[in-house]
Protein backbone atom coordinates (compact mmCIF):
# COMPACT_ATOMS: atom_id res chain seq x y z
CA UNK A 1 0.00 0.00 0.00
CA UNK A 2 1.41 3.38 -0.94
CA UNK A 3 1.66 5.82 1.94
CA UNK A 4 -1.04 8.44 1.81
CA UNK A 5 -3.29 6.46 -0.50
CA UNK A 6 -6.65 5.99 1.16
CA UNK A 7 -8.04 2.50 0.93
CA UNK A 8 -11.43 2.25 -0.75
CA UNK A 9 -13.43 0.70 1.98
CA UNK A 10 -16.69 -0.74 3.07
CA UNK A 11 -15.72 -2.43 6.33
CA UNK A 12 -14.14 0.70 7.73
CA UNK A 13 -15.45 3.74 5.93
CA UNK A 14 -12.64 6.21 5.52
CA UNK A 15 -14.97 9.12 6.29
CA UNK A 16 -13.08 12.20 7.36
CA UNK A 17 -9.89 10.16 7.64
CA UNK A 18 -9.75 10.21 3.84
CA UNK A 19 -8.13 13.62 4.08
CA UNK A 20 -4.71 12.93 5.47
CA UNK A 21 -2.67 15.45 7.37
CA UNK A 22 0.77 14.56 8.55
CA UNK A 23 1.83 14.93 12.14
CA UNK A 24 2.21 18.59 13.01
CA UNK A 25 3.19 20.53 16.08
CA UNK A 26 -0.14 22.31 15.81
CA UNK A 27 -1.97 18.98 16.02
CA UNK A 28 0.15 17.80 18.92
CA UNK A 29 -0.47 21.01 20.85
CA UNK A 30 -4.19 20.62 20.29
CA UNK A 31 -3.99 17.01 21.43
CA UNK A 32 -2.15 17.98 24.60
CA UNK A 33 -4.68 20.72 25.28
CA UNK A 34 -7.52 18.18 24.98
CA UNK A 35 -5.69 15.90 27.39
CA UNK A 36 -5.02 18.65 29.89
CA UNK A 37 -8.55 19.98 29.93
CA UNK A 38 -10.24 16.58 30.05
CA UNK A 39 -8.74 15.58 33.38
CA UNK A 40 -10.67 17.02 36.31
CA UNK A 41 -7.79 17.12 38.79
CA UNK A 42 -5.92 19.62 36.59
CA UNK A 43 -8.63 22.19 37.10
CA UNK A 44 -8.77 21.62 40.83
CA UNK A 45 -5.08 22.36 41.03
CA UNK A 46 -5.41 25.46 38.88
CA UNK A 47 -8.32 26.58 41.05
CA UNK A 48 -6.06 26.13 44.07
CA UNK A 49 -3.42 28.23 42.35
CA UNK A 50 -5.86 31.04 41.73
CA UNK A 51 -7.42 30.95 45.19
CA UNK A 52 -3.99 30.84 46.81
CA UNK A 53 -2.68 33.81 44.86
CA UNK A 54 -5.73 35.95 45.57
CA UNK A 55 -6.10 34.77 49.16
CA UNK A 56 -2.50 35.13 50.24
CA UNK A 57 -2.01 38.38 48.29
CA UNK A 58 -4.99 40.09 49.88
CA UNK A 59 -4.31 38.66 53.32
CA UNK A 60 -0.69 39.81 53.23
CA UNK A 61 -1.72 43.23 51.94
CA UNK A 62 -4.17 43.78 54.75
CA UNK A 63 -1.61 42.82 57.37
CA UNK A 64 1.08 45.08 55.94
CA UNK A 65 1.50 48.59 57.30
CA UNK A 66 4.17 50.90 58.61
CA UNK A 67 2.16 51.87 61.68
CA UNK A 68 4.87 50.38 63.88
CA UNK A 69 7.26 53.14 62.73
CA UNK A 70 5.31 55.62 64.79
CA UNK A 71 6.00 59.18 63.70
CA UNK A 72 8.61 58.26 61.13
CA UNK A 73 7.56 58.10 57.53
CA UNK A 74 8.48 55.09 55.38
CA UNK A 75 10.36 55.87 52.20
CA UNK A 76 8.61 55.38 48.86
CA UNK A 77 11.10 52.60 48.08
CA UNK A 78 10.17 50.94 51.34
CA UNK A 79 6.49 51.15 50.46
CA UNK A 80 7.11 49.69 47.02
CA UNK A 81 9.03 46.82 48.58
CA UNK A 82 6.20 46.28 51.07
CA UNK A 83 3.74 46.00 48.16
CA UNK A 84 5.99 43.52 46.39
CA UNK A 85 6.41 41.51 49.55
CA UNK A 86 2.64 41.24 49.93
CA UNK A 87 2.23 40.09 46.35
CA UNK A 88 4.94 37.49 46.04
CA UNK A 89 4.54 35.38 49.13
CA UNK A 90 1.84 33.39 47.37
CA UNK A 91 4.38 32.29 44.80
CA UNK A 92 6.25 30.26 47.42
CA UNK A 93 3.07 28.29 48.01
CA UNK A 94 2.15 28.15 44.33
CA UNK A 95 5.44 26.53 43.40
CA UNK A 96 4.36 23.59 45.55
CA UNK A 97 1.12 23.31 43.56
CA UNK A 98 2.81 23.50 40.16
CA UNK A 99 5.60 21.26 41.47
CA UNK A 100 2.98 18.56 41.92
CA UNK A 101 1.04 19.42 38.76
CA UNK A 102 4.13 19.50 36.55
CA UNK A 103 5.03 15.97 37.61
CA UNK A 104 1.43 14.76 37.26
CA UNK A 105 1.02 16.09 33.73
CA UNK A 106 3.77 13.86 32.38
CA UNK A 107 4.32 11.04 34.89
CA UNK A 108 0.56 10.56 35.16
CA UNK A 109 0.54 9.56 31.53
CA UNK A 110 3.14 6.90 32.19
CA UNK A 111 1.22 5.80 35.24
CA UNK A 112 -2.00 5.14 33.32
CA UNK A 113 -0.29 3.71 30.24
CA UNK A 114 -1.74 6.50 28.08
CA UNK A 115 1.81 7.32 27.04
CA UNK A 116 1.80 4.21 24.83
CA UNK A 117 -1.19 5.55 22.91
CA UNK A 118 0.54 8.91 22.70
CA UNK A 119 3.83 7.52 21.42
CA UNK A 120 2.04 5.25 18.97
CA UNK A 121 0.49 8.35 17.43
CA UNK A 122 3.74 10.33 17.67
CA UNK A 123 6.52 7.77 17.38
CA UNK A 124 9.25 10.40 17.28
CA UNK A 125 8.25 11.22 20.87
CA UNK A 126 10.32 14.38 21.42
CA UNK A 127 7.87 16.81 19.76
CA UNK A 128 5.09 15.50 21.95
CA UNK A 129 7.15 16.17 25.08
CA UNK A 130 7.72 19.75 23.94
CA UNK A 131 4.07 20.23 22.97
CA UNK A 132 2.97 18.94 26.35
CA UNK A 133 5.41 21.20 28.21
CA UNK A 134 4.33 24.15 26.11
CA UNK A 135 0.63 23.62 26.78
CA UNK A 136 1.27 23.17 30.49
CA UNK A 137 3.44 26.30 30.67
CA UNK A 138 1.01 28.46 28.71
CA UNK A 139 -2.06 27.37 30.69
CA UNK A 140 -0.19 27.87 33.97
CA UNK A 141 0.93 31.30 32.83
CA UNK A 142 -2.61 32.29 31.81
CA UNK A 143 -4.09 31.10 35.10
CA UNK A 144 -1.31 33.03 36.84
CA UNK A 145 -2.02 36.19 34.85
CA UNK A 146 -5.69 35.90 35.70
CA UNK A 147 -4.81 35.49 39.38
CA UNK A 148 -2.56 38.54 39.29
CA UNK A 149 -5.13 40.60 37.40
CA UNK A 150 -7.49 39.96 40.29
CA UNK A 151 -4.96 40.28 43.09
CA UNK A 152 -2.95 43.36 42.08
CA UNK A 153 -5.85 45.86 42.13
CA UNK A 154 -7.17 44.34 45.37
CA UNK A 155 -3.74 44.48 46.98
CA UNK A 156 -3.17 48.08 45.93
CA UNK A 157 -6.56 49.09 47.25
CA UNK A 158 -6.04 47.34 50.58
CA UNK A 159 -2.51 48.76 50.97
CA UNK A 160 -3.79 52.27 50.29
CA UNK A 161 -6.19 51.76 53.18
CA UNK A 162 -3.15 50.93 55.34
CA UNK A 163 -1.40 54.14 54.32
CA UNK A 164 0.85 52.57 51.72
CA UNK A 165 0.57 54.29 48.36
CA UNK A 166 1.96 52.09 45.66
CA UNK A 167 3.41 53.90 42.68
CA UNK A 168 2.59 51.98 39.54
CA UNK A 169 5.34 53.57 37.47
CA UNK A 170 7.90 51.58 39.44
CA UNK A 171 9.39 49.05 37.00
CA UNK A 172 10.80 47.00 39.89
CA UNK A 173 7.29 46.45 41.20
CA UNK A 174 6.08 45.01 37.93
CA UNK A 175 9.24 43.03 37.32
CA UNK A 176 8.91 41.43 40.75
CA UNK A 177 5.18 40.71 40.40
CA UNK A 178 5.47 39.27 36.87
CA UNK A 179 8.72 37.64 37.98
CA UNK A 180 6.85 35.75 40.70
CA UNK A 181 4.66 34.26 37.98
CA UNK A 182 7.62 33.45 35.74
CA UNK A 183 9.19 31.76 38.77
CA UNK A 184 6.07 29.64 39.28
CA UNK A 185 5.88 28.65 35.59
CA UNK A 186 9.56 27.73 35.44
CA UNK A 187 9.32 25.65 38.62
CA UNK A 188 6.38 23.89 36.95
CA UNK A 189 8.64 23.08 34.03
CA UNK A 190 11.41 21.90 36.35
CA UNK A 191 8.90 19.52 37.93
CA UNK A 192 7.76 18.46 34.46
CA UNK A 193 11.36 17.65 33.52
CA UNK A 194 11.78 15.61 36.69
CA UNK A 195 8.52 13.77 35.97
CA UNK A 196 9.67 13.03 32.42
CA UNK A 197 12.94 11.60 33.68
CA UNK A 198 11.55 9.53 36.54
CA UNK A 199 8.24 8.54 34.83
CA UNK A 200 6.84 7.92 38.28
CA UNK A 201 4.35 10.11 40.14
CA UNK A 202 5.39 9.48 43.74
CA UNK A 203 9.11 9.63 43.07
CA UNK A 204 8.71 12.66 40.83
CA UNK A 205 6.70 14.65 43.35
CA UNK A 206 9.09 13.73 46.15
CA UNK A 207 12.09 14.86 44.14
CA UNK A 208 10.44 18.01 42.79
CA UNK A 209 9.24 19.19 46.18
CA UNK A 210 12.54 18.14 47.73
CA UNK A 211 14.39 20.30 45.25
CA UNK A 212 12.04 23.25 45.52
CA UNK A 213 11.51 23.28 49.23
CA UNK A 214 13.32 20.79 51.42
CA UNK A 215 16.90 20.99 50.19
CA UNK A 216 17.20 24.79 50.24
CA UNK A 217 15.61 24.94 53.68
CA UNK A 218 18.04 22.34 54.93
CA UNK A 219 20.96 24.25 53.47
CA UNK A 220 19.52 27.56 54.60
CA UNK A 221 19.91 26.44 58.20
CA UNK A 222 23.63 26.71 57.72
CA UNK A 223 24.77 30.26 58.26
CA UNK A 224 27.91 32.16 59.09
CA UNK A 225 31.29 32.39 57.48
CA UNK A 226 34.03 30.18 56.11
CA UNK A 227 33.16 26.96 54.31
CA UNK A 228 29.54 27.41 55.32
CA UNK A 229 29.48 30.63 53.40
CA UNK A 230 30.33 28.59 50.35
CA UNK A 231 27.32 26.42 51.09
CA UNK A 232 25.11 29.44 51.34
CA UNK A 233 26.39 30.71 48.04
CA UNK A 234 25.79 27.30 46.51
CA UNK A 235 22.27 27.25 47.88
CA UNK A 236 21.60 30.33 45.77
CA UNK A 237 21.42 27.95 42.85
CA UNK A 238 18.29 26.28 44.20
CA UNK A 239 15.11 27.32 42.43
CA UNK A 240 13.66 28.97 45.51
CA UNK A 241 16.64 31.33 45.83
CA UNK A 242 16.73 32.00 42.11
CA UNK A 243 13.05 32.89 42.45
CA UNK A 244 13.91 35.21 45.33
CA UNK A 245 16.40 37.01 43.11
CA UNK A 246 13.84 37.34 40.36
CA UNK A 247 11.25 38.80 42.72
CA UNK A 248 13.56 40.98 44.81
CA UNK A 249 12.85 44.67 45.18
CA UNK A 250 15.71 47.13 45.75
CA UNK A 251 13.73 48.90 48.46
CA UNK A 252 13.63 45.81 50.65
CA UNK A 253 16.06 47.13 53.33
CA UNK A 254 13.87 50.24 53.66
CA UNK A 255 10.89 47.97 54.24
CA UNK A 256 12.46 45.40 56.56
CA UNK A 257 14.60 47.74 58.64
CA UNK A 258 13.86 51.38 57.80
CA UNK A 259 16.52 53.92 58.68
CA UNK A 260 19.23 51.39 59.32
CA UNK A 261 22.21 50.81 57.05
CA UNK A 262 21.74 47.60 55.06
CA UNK A 263 23.68 44.65 56.43
CA UNK A 264 25.67 42.69 53.91
CA UNK A 265 27.53 39.58 54.87
CA UNK A 266 31.06 39.69 53.50
CA UNK A 267 31.49 37.25 50.64
CA UNK A 268 27.81 36.39 50.32
CA UNK A 269 26.72 36.69 46.74
CA UNK A 270 23.57 38.53 45.75
CA UNK A 271 22.05 37.55 42.42
CA UNK A 272 20.58 40.09 40.07
CA UNK A 273 16.99 39.44 38.94
CA UNK A 274 18.10 38.47 35.47
CA UNK A 275 20.57 36.01 36.95
CA UNK A 276 17.73 34.44 38.90
CA UNK A 277 15.67 34.06 35.74
CA UNK A 278 18.62 32.70 33.83
CA UNK A 279 19.38 30.20 36.58
CA UNK A 280 15.81 28.89 36.47
CA UNK A 281 15.93 28.62 32.70
CA UNK A 282 19.19 26.66 32.96
CA UNK A 283 17.51 24.23 35.35
CA UNK A 284 14.71 23.71 32.85
CA UNK A 285 17.03 23.31 29.88
CA UNK A 286 19.32 20.83 31.62
CA UNK A 287 16.43 18.70 32.86
CA UNK A 288 14.75 18.74 29.45
CA UNK A 289 17.97 17.78 27.73
CA UNK A 290 18.30 14.78 30.05
CA UNK A 291 14.62 13.90 29.53
CA UNK A 292 14.99 14.05 25.75
CA UNK A 293 18.07 11.83 25.74
CA UNK A 294 16.32 9.25 27.91
CA UNK A 295 13.11 9.52 25.91
CA UNK A 296 14.89 8.57 22.72
CA UNK A 297 16.65 5.68 24.32
CA UNK A 298 14.08 3.99 26.50
CA UNK A 299 11.26 1.63 25.67
CA UNK A 300 7.87 3.14 26.34
Amino acid sequence: MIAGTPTPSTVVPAGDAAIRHGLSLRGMIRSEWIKLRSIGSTWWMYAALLVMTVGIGTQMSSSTSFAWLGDEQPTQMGMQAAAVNAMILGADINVLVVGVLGVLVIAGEYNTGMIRSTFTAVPRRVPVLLAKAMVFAVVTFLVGILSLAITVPMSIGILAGNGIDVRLDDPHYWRAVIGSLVYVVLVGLIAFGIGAILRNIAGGIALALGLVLVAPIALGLVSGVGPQLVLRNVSLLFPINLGRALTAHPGYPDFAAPGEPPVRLEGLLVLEPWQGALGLVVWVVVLFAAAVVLLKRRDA
Partner: protein
Amino acid sequence: MIEAQSLTKRFSTTTAVDGITFSARPGRVTGFLGPNGAGKSTTMRMIVGLDRPSSGSITVNGRPYAEHTAPIHEVGALLDATAVSGGRSARNHLLAVAATHRIGARRVDEVIRLTGLESVARKRVRGFSLGMGQRLGLATALLGDPATLILDEPVNGLDPDGVVWVRQFVRGLAAEGRTVLLSSHLMSEMAQTADHLVILGRGRIIADAAVTDILADAGGTTVAVRTPDGGLLATALEAHGAGISFPEPDLLSVNGLDSRRIAEIAAQNGAVIYELTPYAASLEEAYMALTRDDVEYHSAGTPREATR
Protein backbone atom coordinates in the same frame (compact mmCIF):
# COMPACT_ATOMS: atom_id res chain seq x y z
CA MET B 1 3.15 -4.80 4.39
CA ILE B 2 5.18 -5.46 7.52
CA GLU B 3 8.69 -6.83 7.17
CA ALA B 4 10.97 -7.96 9.98
CA GLN B 5 14.64 -8.64 9.28
CA SER B 6 16.73 -10.50 11.88
CA LEU B 7 14.71 -8.69 14.50
CA THR B 8 16.06 -9.13 18.00
CA LYS B 9 15.01 -7.75 21.36
CA ARG B 10 16.95 -8.45 24.51
CA PHE B 11 15.81 -7.38 27.94
CA SER B 12 18.27 -7.47 30.79
CA THR B 13 17.78 -11.15 31.53
CA THR B 14 15.81 -12.54 28.60
CA THR B 15 16.00 -12.54 24.85
CA ALA B 16 12.36 -11.96 24.06
CA VAL B 17 12.74 -11.95 20.28
CA ASP B 18 15.65 -13.79 18.77
CA GLY B 19 16.56 -12.85 15.21
CA ILE B 20 13.21 -13.36 13.52
CA THR B 21 12.54 -12.64 9.85
CA PHE B 22 8.99 -12.65 8.55
CA SER B 23 6.53 -10.55 6.65
CA ALA B 24 2.83 -9.80 6.82
CA ARG B 25 1.40 -9.13 3.38
CA PRO B 26 -1.51 -7.02 2.21
CA GLY B 27 -4.79 -8.74 1.52
CA ARG B 28 -4.49 -11.44 4.10
CA VAL B 29 -4.74 -12.01 7.81
CA THR B 30 -1.42 -13.08 9.24
CA GLY B 31 -1.89 -14.91 12.51
CA PHE B 32 0.78 -14.47 15.11
CA LEU B 33 0.78 -17.47 17.39
CA GLY B 34 2.87 -18.73 20.22
CA PRO B 35 2.77 -19.74 23.87
CA ASN B 36 2.92 -17.21 26.70
CA GLY B 37 6.13 -15.25 26.64
CA ALA B 38 6.98 -16.27 23.08
CA GLY B 39 7.62 -12.66 22.11
CA LYS B 40 4.45 -11.78 20.16
CA SER B 41 3.63 -8.59 22.03
CA THR B 42 7.26 -7.50 22.08
CA THR B 43 7.44 -7.87 18.31
CA MET B 44 4.24 -5.91 17.86
CA ARG B 45 5.47 -3.14 20.12
CA MET B 46 8.64 -2.93 18.04
CA ILE B 47 6.57 -2.46 14.87
CA VAL B 48 5.25 0.86 16.16
CA GLY B 49 8.46 1.81 17.92
CA LEU B 50 7.30 1.47 21.51
CA ASP B 51 10.17 -0.96 22.12
CA ARG B 52 13.51 -0.38 20.42
CA PRO B 53 14.96 -3.40 18.62
CA SER B 54 18.31 -4.52 20.07
CA SER B 55 19.31 -5.39 16.51
CA GLY B 56 17.71 -6.06 13.16
CA SER B 57 14.95 -3.99 11.66
CA ILE B 58 11.23 -3.87 11.23
CA THR B 59 9.49 -1.75 8.64
CA VAL B 60 5.99 -0.89 7.60
CA ASN B 61 5.51 -0.25 3.90
CA GLY B 62 9.24 -0.04 3.46
CA ARG B 63 10.07 2.38 6.25
CA PRO B 64 10.47 2.30 9.99
CA TYR B 65 7.15 3.34 11.51
CA ALA B 66 8.57 6.51 13.06
CA GLU B 67 9.68 7.79 9.69
CA HIS B 68 6.19 8.00 8.23
CA THR B 69 4.78 11.50 8.09
CA ALA B 70 1.31 10.38 9.17
CA PRO B 71 1.89 7.31 11.34
CA ILE B 72 -1.68 6.55 12.41
CA HIS B 73 -2.89 6.77 8.82
CA GLU B 74 -0.31 4.10 8.07
CA VAL B 75 -0.74 1.67 10.94
CA GLY B 76 -3.54 1.13 13.41
CA ALA B 77 -2.41 -0.65 16.54
CA LEU B 78 -4.33 -2.28 19.34
CA LEU B 79 -1.53 -3.37 21.64
CA ASP B 80 -3.00 -3.21 25.06
CA ALA B 81 -6.36 -1.87 25.94
CA THR B 82 -5.05 -0.33 29.15
CA ALA B 83 -3.11 2.37 27.31
CA VAL B 84 -5.74 4.92 28.31
CA SER B 85 -6.13 7.48 31.07
CA GLY B 86 -8.91 6.28 33.33
CA GLY B 87 -10.07 9.75 34.25
CA ARG B 88 -10.87 10.75 30.68
CA SER B 89 -13.95 9.82 28.68
CA ALA B 90 -13.59 7.46 25.74
CA ARG B 91 -14.52 10.26 23.36
CA ASN B 92 -11.93 12.64 24.80
CA HIS B 93 -9.32 9.91 24.58
CA LEU B 94 -10.10 9.45 20.90
CA LEU B 95 -10.23 13.21 20.29
CA ALA B 96 -6.78 13.60 21.85
CA VAL B 97 -5.22 10.86 19.74
CA ALA B 98 -7.01 12.08 16.61
CA ALA B 99 -5.89 15.67 17.12
CA THR B 100 -2.22 14.77 16.63
CA HIS B 101 -3.03 14.12 12.97
CA ARG B 102 -5.68 16.84 12.78
CA ILE B 103 -8.43 14.25 12.51
CA GLY B 104 -11.68 15.85 13.57
CA ALA B 105 -14.59 15.04 15.87
CA ARG B 106 -16.69 13.65 13.04
CA ARG B 107 -14.24 10.82 12.44
CA VAL B 108 -14.08 10.18 16.18
CA ASP B 109 -17.85 9.76 16.30
CA GLU B 110 -17.64 7.52 13.28
CA VAL B 111 -15.25 5.02 14.90
CA ILE B 112 -17.28 5.19 18.10
CA ARG B 113 -20.31 4.06 16.11
CA LEU B 114 -18.31 1.47 14.22
CA THR B 115 -17.09 -0.20 17.41
CA GLY B 116 -20.41 0.02 19.21
CA LEU B 117 -19.29 2.43 21.91
CA GLU B 118 -22.04 5.05 21.50
CA SER B 119 -23.65 4.43 24.88
CA VAL B 120 -20.42 4.75 26.88
CA ALA B 121 -18.45 7.22 24.76
CA ARG B 122 -18.89 10.06 27.23
CA LYS B 123 -18.23 7.97 30.31
CA ARG B 124 -14.92 7.73 32.06
CA VAL B 125 -12.77 4.90 30.81
CA ARG B 126 -12.00 3.88 34.40
CA GLY B 127 -15.34 2.12 34.70
CA PHE B 128 -15.04 0.20 31.43
CA SER B 129 -15.25 -3.57 31.25
CA LEU B 130 -12.43 -5.48 29.57
CA GLY B 131 -14.50 -5.82 26.40
CA MET B 132 -15.36 -2.12 26.32
CA GLY B 133 -11.68 -1.33 26.71
CA GLN B 134 -10.88 -3.60 23.74
CA ARG B 135 -13.48 -1.84 21.65
CA LEU B 136 -11.98 1.51 22.56
CA GLY B 137 -8.54 0.19 21.61
CA LEU B 138 -9.94 -0.96 18.29
CA ALA B 139 -11.63 2.40 17.75
CA THR B 140 -8.29 4.12 18.37
CA ALA B 141 -6.59 1.83 15.86
CA LEU B 142 -9.19 2.65 13.20
CA LEU B 143 -9.08 6.45 13.58
CA GLY B 144 -6.67 6.95 10.71
CA ASP B 145 -8.28 4.42 8.36
CA PRO B 146 -4.90 2.70 8.13
CA ALA B 147 -3.89 0.17 5.49
CA THR B 148 -2.07 -1.90 8.10
CA LEU B 149 -3.54 -3.15 11.36
CA ILE B 150 -1.73 -4.75 14.27
CA LEU B 151 -4.04 -6.34 16.78
CA ASP B 152 -2.66 -8.01 19.90
CA GLU B 153 -5.28 -10.42 21.19
CA PRO B 154 -8.21 -8.28 20.12
CA VAL B 155 -10.87 -10.78 21.19
CA ASN B 156 -9.50 -10.96 24.72
CA GLY B 157 -12.44 -10.16 26.98
CA LEU B 158 -15.03 -9.85 24.24
CA ASP B 159 -18.40 -11.56 24.50
CA PRO B 160 -19.34 -14.18 21.86
CA ASP B 161 -21.04 -11.52 19.75
CA GLY B 162 -17.93 -9.41 19.95
CA VAL B 163 -15.69 -12.33 18.99
CA VAL B 164 -17.74 -13.08 15.90
CA TRP B 165 -17.87 -9.41 15.03
CA VAL B 166 -14.09 -9.01 15.30
CA ARG B 167 -13.54 -12.14 13.22
CA GLN B 168 -15.75 -10.92 10.38
CA PHE B 169 -14.37 -7.44 10.73
CA VAL B 170 -10.78 -8.62 10.42
CA ARG B 171 -11.63 -10.83 7.45
CA GLY B 172 -13.30 -7.85 5.83
CA LEU B 173 -10.27 -5.65 6.39
CA ALA B 174 -8.02 -8.17 4.67
CA ALA B 175 -10.52 -8.60 1.85
CA GLU B 176 -10.21 -4.87 1.23
CA GLY B 177 -6.52 -5.36 0.65
CA ARG B 178 -5.29 -4.27 4.04
CA THR B 179 -2.47 -5.92 5.93
CA VAL B 180 -3.63 -7.47 9.19
CA LEU B 181 -1.32 -8.93 11.81
CA LEU B 182 -3.31 -10.60 14.53
CA SER B 183 -2.14 -12.40 17.63
CA SER B 184 -4.28 -14.74 19.62
CA HIS B 185 -4.07 -17.59 22.09
CA LEU B 186 -7.10 -19.27 20.58
CA MET B 187 -5.89 -21.60 17.87
CA SER B 188 -9.46 -22.40 16.88
CA GLU B 189 -9.94 -18.67 16.42
CA MET B 190 -6.93 -18.52 14.14
CA ALA B 191 -8.20 -21.41 12.04
CA GLN B 192 -11.28 -19.37 11.26
CA THR B 193 -9.62 -16.00 10.88
CA ALA B 194 -6.07 -16.27 9.59
CA ASP B 195 -4.81 -17.10 6.11
CA HIS B 196 -1.21 -17.37 7.07
CA LEU B 197 0.45 -18.23 10.35
CA VAL B 198 3.72 -17.13 11.89
CA ILE B 199 4.29 -19.32 14.92
CA LEU B 200 6.74 -18.17 17.57
CA GLY B 201 8.33 -20.13 20.37
CA ARG B 202 10.84 -18.63 22.77
CA GLY B 203 11.48 -15.72 20.49
CA ARG B 204 12.15 -17.78 17.38
CA ILE B 205 10.00 -18.65 14.41
CA ILE B 206 8.84 -22.25 14.48
CA ALA B 207 6.59 -22.12 11.45
CA ASP B 208 5.76 -19.56 8.81
CA ALA B 209 3.24 -20.99 6.34
CA ALA B 210 -0.31 -20.92 5.05
CA VAL B 211 -2.87 -22.28 7.48
CA THR B 212 -3.78 -25.07 5.03
CA ASP B 213 -0.14 -26.16 4.71
CA ILE B 214 0.33 -26.28 8.44
CA LEU B 215 -2.75 -28.47 8.74
CA ALA B 216 -1.59 -30.78 5.97
CA ASP B 217 1.85 -31.17 7.53
CA ALA B 218 0.37 -32.05 10.89
CA GLY B 219 0.11 -35.72 9.98
CA GLY B 220 -2.90 -35.88 7.67
CA THR B 221 -5.98 -37.78 8.65
CA THR B 222 -6.56 -40.31 11.37
CA VAL B 223 -9.45 -42.78 11.15
CA ALA B 224 -11.10 -44.23 14.23
CA VAL B 225 -12.39 -47.78 13.68
CA ARG B 226 -14.66 -49.49 16.21
CA THR B 227 -14.54 -53.26 15.77
CA PRO B 228 -14.79 -56.48 17.86
CA ASP B 229 -12.10 -58.02 15.59
CA GLY B 230 -9.33 -55.61 16.58
CA GLY B 231 -6.40 -58.03 16.47
CA LEU B 232 -7.30 -59.52 13.10
CA LEU B 233 -7.99 -56.15 11.45
CA ALA B 234 -4.85 -54.55 12.89
CA THR B 235 -2.66 -57.23 11.41
CA ALA B 236 -4.32 -56.90 8.00
CA LEU B 237 -4.08 -53.09 8.01
CA GLU B 238 -0.45 -53.13 9.09
CA ALA B 239 0.27 -55.43 6.16
CA HIS B 240 -1.01 -52.52 3.99
CA GLY B 241 1.33 -50.07 5.65
CA ALA B 242 -0.98 -48.43 8.19
CA GLY B 243 0.09 -47.17 11.59
CA ILE B 244 -2.15 -48.55 14.34
CA SER B 245 -2.80 -47.76 17.96
CA PHE B 246 -5.44 -49.00 20.42
CA PRO B 247 -6.82 -46.12 22.47
CA GLU B 248 -9.56 -48.50 23.75
CA PRO B 249 -9.86 -52.31 23.58
CA ASP B 250 -12.34 -52.31 20.65
CA LEU B 251 -11.15 -49.06 19.06
CA LEU B 252 -8.39 -48.80 16.47
CA SER B 253 -6.77 -45.52 15.56
CA VAL B 254 -5.48 -45.86 12.01
CA ASN B 255 -2.98 -43.61 10.30
CA GLY B 256 -1.93 -43.68 6.66
CA LEU B 257 -5.03 -45.25 5.06
CA ASP B 258 -8.32 -43.58 4.22
CA SER B 259 -11.72 -44.88 5.36
CA ARG B 260 -12.61 -46.40 1.99
CA ARG B 261 -9.43 -48.53 1.88
CA ILE B 262 -9.89 -49.58 5.50
CA ALA B 263 -13.46 -50.76 4.77
CA GLU B 264 -12.28 -52.78 1.76
CA ILE B 265 -9.51 -54.47 3.74
CA ALA B 266 -11.97 -55.27 6.54
CA ALA B 267 -14.41 -56.86 4.03
CA GLN B 268 -11.66 -58.96 2.46
CA ASN B 269 -10.68 -60.25 5.91
CA GLY B 270 -14.22 -60.73 7.20
CA ALA B 271 -13.81 -58.23 10.06
CA VAL B 272 -16.95 -56.61 11.48
CA ILE B 273 -16.96 -52.81 11.72
CA TYR B 274 -19.41 -50.83 13.90
CA GLU B 275 -18.04 -47.40 13.23
CA LEU B 276 -15.60 -45.70 10.88
CA THR B 277 -14.76 -42.02 11.56
CA PRO B 278 -12.10 -39.91 9.85
CA TYR B 279 -10.62 -37.06 11.95
CA ALA B 280 -8.71 -34.20 10.42
CA ALA B 281 -5.91 -33.05 12.65
CA SER B 282 -7.04 -29.79 14.20
CA LEU B 283 -4.95 -26.67 14.03
CA GLU B 284 -4.82 -26.98 17.77
CA GLU B 285 -3.07 -30.35 17.54
CA ALA B 286 -0.78 -29.11 14.81
CA TYR B 287 0.14 -26.16 16.96
CA MET B 288 0.71 -28.29 20.04
CA ALA B 289 2.94 -30.61 18.07
CA LEU B 290 4.95 -27.69 16.73
CA THR B 291 5.41 -25.82 19.97
CA ARG B 292 5.74 -28.74 22.37
CA ASP B 293 9.41 -28.11 22.90
CA ASP B 294 9.13 -24.36 22.89
CA VAL B 295 6.58 -23.80 25.56
CA GLU B 296 8.17 -21.68 28.21
CA TYR B 297 5.61 -22.17 30.92
CA HIS B 298 4.20 -25.70 31.17
CA SER B 299 1.11 -26.05 33.28
CA ALA B 300 1.99 -27.87 36.47
CA GLY B 301 0.64 -31.40 36.64
CA THR B 302 0.31 -31.77 32.87
CA PRO B 303 3.04 -34.06 31.67
CA ARG B 304 4.22 -33.37 28.14
CA GLU B 305 3.07 -36.83 27.08
CA ALA B 306 -0.51 -35.86 27.81
CA THR B 307 -0.61 -33.90 24.58
CA ARG B 308 0.25 -36.94 22.51
